């Protein structure tokens, strides 16, 4: 019963946040020649919301490996964010940042998981 209540509360909060992101009348100042660019500028905030979920798991995670999982997922998510920024700003070097971030994140995750291998899970 308590679980159902938490689910209803969480979904209502999520729907309100998504509604605010997509339909609240912000002033979007920059003139663009393509029509869908203002929509994409709002959609970036959804990616930032997902990154906030990852940061919540990094803050709360009971063991060290939970935090490493969240860091790995955050790394892949940022590549998508850089890709959307490439379209909205029209500068192609954002994608270079994305590639470098993906490489660093992969190597870092492999190194951290090899480091944690065989240790107790509360170190």
């Amino acid at each position, binding site marked *: 019963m308590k679980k159902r209540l938490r689910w209803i509360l969480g979904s209502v909060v999520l729907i309100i946040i998504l509604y605010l992101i997509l339909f609240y009348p912000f002033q979007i100042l920059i003139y663009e020649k393509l029509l869908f660019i203002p929509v*994409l500028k709002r959609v970036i905030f959804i990616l930032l919301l*997902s990154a906030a979920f990852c940061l919540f798991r990094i803050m709360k995670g009971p063991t060290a490996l939970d935090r490493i999982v969240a860091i790995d997922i955050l790394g892949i*998510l940022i590549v*998508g964010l850089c890709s*959307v920024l490439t379209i909205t700003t029209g500068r192609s070097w954002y*994608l270079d940042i994305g*590639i470098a971030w993906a490489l660093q994140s992969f190597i870092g995750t*492999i190194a951290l*998981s090899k480091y944690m291998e065989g240790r107790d*899970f509360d170190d």
Partner: protein
Amino acid sequence: MIDTIGIIFIGLGIFFDLFGCLGLIRFPDLYNRLQASTKCVTFGTGSILFGTFLIVGFTAAGIKALFTIIFIVLTAPVSAHALSKSAHMSGIPLWQESVCDKLEDENRYKKNDQ
């Protein structure tokens, strides 16, 4: 026309990204979280990059997006595999309502054998 198809791909990718990260919060133990988030975020980011390629076309950014898709699809499962193996070796337990753990049984059998 091609811009519309690209924007549909980007919207699909962002939908899957959001629910993958929601799974990171809702699921009860490390292995389930790893499953949900790896699948959803890999496919979502690949879809966003493919939409970028469709909108930008065969320019420098488009080719880089294609290479990044190949790189992510090859490396994300590998890092998930490394993380789950390391978690199982360092003794993180499965969720208490799990059905079976054949790997743990196997390791215990080997230990008794020696």
